[in-house]
């Protein structure tokens, strides 16, 4: 168990949130959890004091125990939903945008879910284009930001190479491998704010900027992040 995870377990607030998250996930999968099963899925021995954590949650009215099985109360569901939302959004950010391997992503998301404020969560959600599911394919609970902008389903930002031929995007960020590329692209008018249209991906990627066609190496195109412009 690495440092982050230990931190999660040891911090009482984080531990409570872990339990809420776990209960949400199992409920989502359609089965209820007993205290013992909970301890097992969280990868900690029974002597680590999960009983105490659960007791605290029951005392604060977030969890109910009936016939040895744990269920979330309405208030508990509300909190769990926020935690799960943060966790899964973080997974999308780390795995799909920043390209971290899944194992790393999982760890990072476990850390982030406990520290992100509601405002930051909504910002991440908007940045990612209100993604409906996490990389594992499980639904991401909606936040207030999602309901105000329900029509947008495309991600808010993606790589140029991920656009479909014919799609347009506005350049948000240029991150080429070689520095001189950045200058050359800028000279050609490819810079933050410029609108690009992807013309084709194979045999070589071709984009249109203003009225100029540019053929680009895939590697260059992967360093160009754009905000897709959907025609309404």
């Amino acid at each position, binding site marked *: 168990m690495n440092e982050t995870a230990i931190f999660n377990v040891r911090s009482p607030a984080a531990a409570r949130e872990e339990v809420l998250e776990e209960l949400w996930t199992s409920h989502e999968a359609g089965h209820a959890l007993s205290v013992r099963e909970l301890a097992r899925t969280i990868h900690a021995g029974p002597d680590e004091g999960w009983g105490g954590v659960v007791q605290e949650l029951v005392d604060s009215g977030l969890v109910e125990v009936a016939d040895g099985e744990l269920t979330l109360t309405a208030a508990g569901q509300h909190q769990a939903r926020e935690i799960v939302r943060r966790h899964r959004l973080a997974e999308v950010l780390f795995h799909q945008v920043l390209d971290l391997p899944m194992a790393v992503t999982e760890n990072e998301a476990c850390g982030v879910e406990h520290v992100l404020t509601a405002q930051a969560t909504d910002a991440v959600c908007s940045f990612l284009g209100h993604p409906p599911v996490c990389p594992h394919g499980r639904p991401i609970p909606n936040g207030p930001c999602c309901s105000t902008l329900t029509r947008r389903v495309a991600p808010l930002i993606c790589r140029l190479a991920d656009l479909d031929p014919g799609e347009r995007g506005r350049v948000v960020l240029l991150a080429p491998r070689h520095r*001189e*590329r950045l*200058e*050359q692209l800028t*000279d050609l008018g490819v810079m933050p704010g410029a609108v690009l249209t992807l013309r*084709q991906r194979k*045999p070589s990627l071709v984009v249109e900027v*203003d009225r100029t066609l540019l053929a680009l*190496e895939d590697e260059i195109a992967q360093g160009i992040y754009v905000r897709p412009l959907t025609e309404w």
Partner: protein
Amino acid sequence: MSELPQPASVVPPVLLVGNPNVGKSVIFGALTRRYVTVSNYPGTTVEVTRGEGRAIPGRPEVVDTPGTNSLTPQSEDERVTRDILLAEPAAVVLQVGDTKNLRRVLYLTAQLAEMGRRQLLVLNLQDEARDLGVRVESAELESRLGIPVIPATAIRNAGLDAIPRRLGEAAIARLQPSYPAVVERAVLETAALLPAELGESRRGIALMLLAADRTLADWAAARLSAAARADIDARRAAVDRALGVSTATAIARARHRAVASLLRQVFHVDRAQRGSLRDRLGAWSMHPVWGVPILLAVLFVAYEFVGVFGAGVLVGLVEDGLFGKVINPAVGSLVTRFVPWEWAKDLLVGPYGIVTMALTYAIAIVLPVVGTFFVFFGVLEDSGYLPRLAVMLNRGFRVMGLNGKAVLPMVLGLGCDTMATLTTRILPTKKERVLVTLLLALGVPCSAQLGVILAMLASIAPLGTVLWVGVVMLVLFGVGWAAARLIPGRGSDFLLEVPPVRVPSLLNIAIKTAARTEWYLKEAVPLFILGTLLLFVLDRLAVLPALEAAARPLVVGFLGLPEKATDAFLIGFLRRDYGAAGFFVLRQQGLLDGVQALVSLVVITLFVPCIANFFMMIKERGLAASVAMAGFIVPFAFLVGGVLNFVLRALGVTL
């Protein structure tokens, strides 16, 4: 670099500067009434061309420069342009721009203004802009910039008459980007370090130095103390830290902001872009599926037009008809009648005669092929197909440590390897330039040679053509693959501007073909004569038989060719198309069987193209590298031929 001020009485030279492929060379031609090669791909002009401005009062010198997107060069050809601007401080800049890409035009205008250059702006390609519904208010732009702005469609000669009239109104454009305060301060401090005689260009040069333009290092080393240079580096580092982006990026973005606000005032798109037939053709020609049949169709037309029509029909007409039936008999009888000396007769019409060998080869065998190739190639160049071919072949070229951009010089090599070697300047890294120079010299047959080869291949079984193409491609990719690993340095990633598809102008094709043919005759014929003289002298001195005997183990033993083939190899050192023509004649005389024909073709294809090409290699790559390349190529050519001979004989292949 001249430090002397221009005498006041002399009309200052005119420098044509602009983005790539916007028509600078067309305007150069109109101003000088002289033809320079004009095509539809970025990088047609890689050298400075100078001419007398006969269409301008006072006939100032007019200088055509390679296209550039910025005065901070990204490749050698762009550097040529920046350097000429530094070297000609008094010259008036005639900026040529593509109207529909006004953003990039003004981006360059801003840099010229910072260099303190007096300029005019020609907004060319008005016809294409109109087709796209683009409208630029040139009068408004003119009053905002404070320089003459001249709309033109140069290829139709429209609007160009205003250039000589308004040349005197040239001024520094009022387009000064405002930089972040830290940058502005660093610019002022850097400019103060620069020699005072640079005058108004100091601001522009300070910006270049702050943008870490490495190509300016020599320039700076010659003019600035080590302390001053270290000072500039420190300022740049401080700006980088303060802004969180590189100084170069901050500068470029500020320029773009200034341009964008001007664009909003003068640039309008009246209707949405719609796909014209030309756009669709352009898209199909680089489509992953449709691009392939289009490429095959292009190759088929090339084969039919150059191989069958040029090398077959035209060569037959000129060689058998004109030379065989008219010129050679006529010259022969004239010589017999009027030239008393036996050796002089031989020199003119003998087996190594200037008329019977040199001129027959150059004009009867090679010229028809070269001519048809130039026509076909001109159409390809002007249509905009070549950059699309680069898009198609990019991935394949990766094997050789190159990318699609190298397709341009390699395909140009099919026209002339010498010019193609010069065109390697468009490649961004030294490694790529060395690789392409080597591959051009090794295995890209030029039009002259290609024609003779095609004609000869037509006389052996189709398998011969397949084997020839296969062996040459294998050698190109194999050597490219190996050389890419042996030659130090790095390649670059593919970034190429694809020009619009344009309908070739017949007039331009005709003029271009004529200019290239003239150039071929001027360059090749003297070498053909020289080669013939060499053979003649060697033959007279009885050295030739000795050489043939000496080369016997190699030519006869290793390559399995007749002794006479030595002659062709000898002249092949001067020009490999001449060597190929020698084999062509041997084949016609029935001295080569199919396998021998193929082996000789493979060896001569892999020879160093010609003396001129070798000199160009020395000029562009240096003596040591060129000698090393030639030292590898010649033995390697024989080695491949020998192995091929051995394999074909062992397998019992007949062609």
